[in-house]
């Protein structure tokens, strides 16, 4: 276990020795603030118009600000996470440092676990900045805290799947660019599967495809619902891709 943390610690720190962490966090915060500003202005305009018409019923911040804002996050993560995880194995292959890991008294599982924790660490650090929006908003508006908390739970789970996919893609190649593309394609596959579900004729097919869709479960979390089947889905997907990475590492010995 300590060896896993040693690996995780090194990889996590190396995000900060380069500029990677700062650039990623900076871009992320800029984009998210801009998007938040847009949904907020849209919301404020609507609210203003309603009031101008003499209607004093107010829109819910949860429904009209946070829900769209947090589903926008998903789109950004789709690109940001492969970019953050692409080098985790590819770079070690390219620089031959994987030789060090592979000839140290470590199992392939420990190596993958270390990488997973490092990847999740940097991603969670960056999405932690999202807490600013509800905190700042809470100074001048009223909204329900529950859905915000479940959204963060959903984000945590969702990102663990993206990180696992990113690690798997990175384990396949020594090119970070290829790792990025492969991760992106796999993620897209699990997005598109949801759209395919929607256009399915049979109810059975719809349920299966909806279940496999990465986006569908997350939408529930943003609405304040803790969907156990969603939790199980995310955890098993993350586990599955970590398992695949472990197999890839093991098989490298036999080439």
């Amino acid at each position: 276990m300590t060896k896993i943390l040693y690996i995780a610690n090194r990889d996590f720190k190396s995000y900060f020795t380069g500029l990677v962490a700062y650039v990623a966090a900076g871009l992320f915060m800029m984009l998210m603030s801009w998007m938040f500003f847009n949904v907020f202005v849209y919301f404020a305009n609507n609210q203003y118009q309603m009031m101008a018409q003499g209607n004093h019923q107010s829109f819910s911040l949860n429904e009209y600000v946070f829900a769209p804002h947090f589903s926008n996050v998903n789109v950004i993560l789709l690109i940001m996470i492969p970019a953050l995880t692409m080098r985790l194995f590819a770079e070690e292959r390219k620089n031959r440092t994987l030789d060090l890991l592979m000839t140290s008294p470590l199992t392939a599982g420990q190596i993958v676990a270390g990488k997973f924790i490092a990847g999740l660490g940097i991603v969670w650090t960056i999405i932690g900045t999202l807490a600013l929006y509800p905190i700042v908003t809470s100074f001048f508006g009223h909204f329900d805290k529950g859905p915000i908390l479940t959204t963060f739970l959903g984000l945590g789970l969702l990102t663990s799947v993206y990180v696992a996919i990113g690690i798997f893609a990175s384990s396949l190649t020594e090119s970070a660019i290829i790792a990025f593309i492969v991760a992106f394609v796999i993620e897209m596959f699990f997005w598109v599967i949801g759209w395919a579900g929607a256009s399915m004729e049979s109810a059975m097919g719809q349920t299966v495809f909806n279940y496999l869709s990465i986006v569908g479960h997350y939408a529930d979390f943003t609405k304040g619902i803790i969907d156990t089947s969603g939790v199980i889905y995310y955890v098993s997907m993350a586990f599955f891709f970590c398992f695949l990475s472990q197999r890839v590492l093991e098989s490298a010995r036999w080439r």
Partner: protein
Amino acid sequence: MIEISNLTKRYGSINAIHNLNFSVKKGEIIGFLGPNGAGKTTTMKIITGFMAPTSGSVKIAGFDVFENPIEVKKRIGYLPETPPLYSDMLVKDYLRYVAQIKGLPSSQIEPGVARAIEKANLGQVQKRLIGNLSKGFRQRVGVAQALVHNPDVLILDEPTVGLDPKQVIEIRNLIKELSGDHTVVLSTHVLPEVTATCQRIIIINKGEIAAEDTFEGLSKRMTSTRRFYVKIRRTGDFEAQVKKIVGVKGIRPGTAGNSYEVELDKNDDSNEMLAEAIVKSGAGLMEFRSIDVSLEDIFLKLTTTDVAQQGATL
């Protein structure tokens, strides 16, 4: 300490190594000598558990590399052909990290790092970024990472490549110092490298062991005598006659019928006299050829000039 039996590795259809058998005793330094593509790196990758062999087995301190990889890896320090360095880390942090993943108990990590820094003479660069080091220093960091957990066995793949003459001598002295406590296998295609450091030499060529001896033994075989394969039609008292020829050191029956292996002083006169005498003896010479050629060929392909020596004469 190291037991290798019937080790074979195929890359697709290429036979990188074929049926290797050798063992290394505790505290011994052996040199793994061979021309490019001989299979040195392949053998080392298998010994360290980095790669699985096609067949055969490797045992380190009694543990089989494939049944018990963790136990084996704890006991091995490995310097691959390309040192496995993280250019974004400081030398000292890197060595600490290696000590950690090698499973050194936390109380021994700092002393281990300090010892490796001292042995590889890295004191002046320990706070530098690895990416900014010169090639020679990077190589030394590579040696240090192999030593940091004080392993029983050190596998060093061309440890002095890219170093300047002074550094080459330093690293060789370091390796010599390590013998006794550590069992060392080092590979090289520089002949003087093994003569300077190793107690025993294994010469590998095209994936097979061509010779295994001390350097003295090998050079004796190489320089003082030469062996010939002789095949004749009528034996008679051939053996006795040949023994009388000047320069002949010995004769014994060869593998095929009517054939002999004759050991002879290594000079062209003896060569000529032997050939002449055999023809004149009327035994009916069928075949006459040198059988040490393979070893000589290998030596010819090796690098015989040494950077360390060049440095000394500069």
